[in-house]
């Protein structure tokens, strides 16, 4: 008992066996690493606010003296000079992101429910296959995918981007793991005994219980699709995406440094805002993300 009495207590929780030296060391490391992560991000934002003369100041300054939104208005001016109206790029990205995410959400939740809550022959190897697919990147199947897309005549259509996104596995994996641990079998079993059909059990009982997993899947799918850039499947200018158009501005070279920084800010605000809003739900889903042997 003597040892327990020695435990220090912090406001939020009981903390055990912590030396001051260790605490300080960790704090210093964390601040150094945090600076490495945060300062470049801050630099992007500061650069986007710098007037032209400050961007070309020597020696370069990190901070901004006379912040201006000039770069953002330059960016919008550049957008208006593009060949295809900029709203079209934005529309393409939104269409791809929304339809792709919706399909992935519907198909993944259906499959995740069956894989986690119904016992049927073939279930285990199906899930094994899905776990295996997490073990190599999409490039490994890109060549054959291109042949497949041409065979389906999907080259230069939205389908080539949207439909494969419906079968993306990370979201399904996370949702299946979450369902497995947070939807109790007893509840489902009693519903089934009360005469609830499998479909009804899925829609009315299981789905409302896994809201954090839906949200996580939506965020992941949306983030991935939002950043769809130039694709080997799309060559018509009017089908290209917002991210592609932005990257064209970014590659405009050093003279457009200000506008490029503004473009980066515009592109990163959306995914970061989405994450901030859904952070607690995502963390709840991640708690069950572990992979069993």
């Amino acid at each position: 008992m003597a040892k327990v009495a020695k435990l220090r207590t912090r406001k939020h929780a009981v903390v055990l066996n912590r030396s001051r030296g260790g605490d300080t060391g960790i704090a210093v490391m964390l601040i150094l690493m945090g600076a490495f992560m945060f300062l470049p991000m801050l630099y992007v934002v500061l650069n986007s606010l710098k007037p032209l003369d400050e961007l070309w100041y020597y020696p370069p300054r990190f901070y901004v003296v006379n912040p201006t939104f000039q770069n953002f208005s330059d960016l919008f001016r550049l957008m208006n000079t593009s060949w295809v109206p900029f709203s079209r790029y934005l529309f393409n990205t939104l269409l791809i992101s929304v339809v792709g995410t919706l399909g992935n959400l519907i198909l993944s939740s259906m499959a995740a429910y069956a894989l986690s809550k119904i016992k049927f022959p073939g279930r285990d190897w199906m899930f094994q296959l899905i776990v295996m697919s997490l073990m190599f990147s999409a490039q490994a199947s890109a060549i054959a995918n291109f042949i497949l897309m041409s065979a389906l005549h999907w080259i230069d259509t939205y389908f080539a981007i949207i439909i494969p996104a419906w079968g993306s596995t990370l979201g399904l994996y996370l949702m299946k793991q979450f369902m497995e641990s947070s939807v109790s079998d007893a509840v489902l079993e009693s519903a089934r005994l009360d005469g609830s059909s499998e479909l009804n059990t899925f829609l009315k009982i299981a789905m409302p219980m896994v809201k954090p997993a839906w949200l996580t899947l939506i965020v992941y799918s949306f983030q991935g699709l939002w950043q769809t850039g130039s694709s080997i499947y799309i060559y018509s200018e009017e089908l290209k995406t917002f991210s592609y158009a932005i990257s064209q501005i970014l590659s405009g070279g050093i003279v457009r440094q200000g506008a490029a920084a503004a473009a980066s800010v515009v592109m990163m605000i959306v995914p970061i805002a989405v994450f901030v809003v859904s952070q607690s739900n995502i963390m709840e889903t991640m708690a069950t993300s572990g992979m069993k042997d």
Partner: protein
Amino acid sequence: MAKEVTVTAEETAEVKVKTPKEKKQPVSRKDMTKWQWTLKEIKRNGTAYALVAPFMIIFCLFTVIPVIVSIALSFTNFNMLQWPDFVFMDNYIRLFLDDDLFITAIQNTLIFAAATGPISYLLSFVVAWFINELSPKIRAIVTLIFYAPSIAGSAYTIWAYIFSGDSYGFVNGWLLKLNIIQDPIQWFRDTTYCMPLCIVVSLWMSLGTAFLSFIAGLQVVDRSLYEAGAVDGVKNRWQELYYITLPCMKQQLMFGAVLAITGAFGFGGVVDALAGNPSVDYCAWTITHHLADYGGARFEVGYAAAISVLLFLMSFGSNILIKKLLSKLGQ
């Protein structure tokens, strides 16, 4: 064995429920062959198959089949126009004996993978562990700071400006100002600095899903284990980490390892924006570049398929290996 027992138990339970209606056939698993049983189960679970089918069809069509097709095509000299000829191992022989650039690509890919994979994995875990004891609000903010670069899209191009080759680049400007160097260094155009810088940038944006998984995993480790550990003589946080935290985190560690390895081998996109494609003297040329070159630009599809099969095998093989190693943890 255990599995069979549970299934039988479930089946008897079901039979009990149904008894009032269909008393005639008290079928138990014992009376049937394995195939009959499976067939019966398949019929009984029609809904389950209907639920998985849409996803599995699309998943197979765009992920499983392409891998199989790639393997098949890698033994041919397909060019998208003529019917493929079977050439057996020719593509692989050419890759290893007659393609110096591929050797460069495979070396660079292995260096990238060996540097970014383990480091990003360790970094993800260490940072998650460091911030585990912060108060929830501060932890959420710190999480955002470390996670943001991985979802910030094109923000990493800022590194091209920080390490810009002229004297207006942030690093060059200050090195010149402080008289450490006399002429600006062509960072991303210099074979000495190009690779290490690309590795640094990819590390900067590598604290992604695995990182979140670790943070969440650490939070759900049962606190009473720590208290029990303290009573039982765990002296400091390092012992606690080794004896309690890591074994409890095994599943998250496994998941994180898979994502880290896959990410490390799929590396290439960062290089294009920073060092150009192709990079100077092919100093940062990876397998993904080689693959895009032969598949996308030259339409030597059979050859490109062989490259993608090797990429697949390297990534998949390392995953299996690491999985084996991690499963020994805490045993």
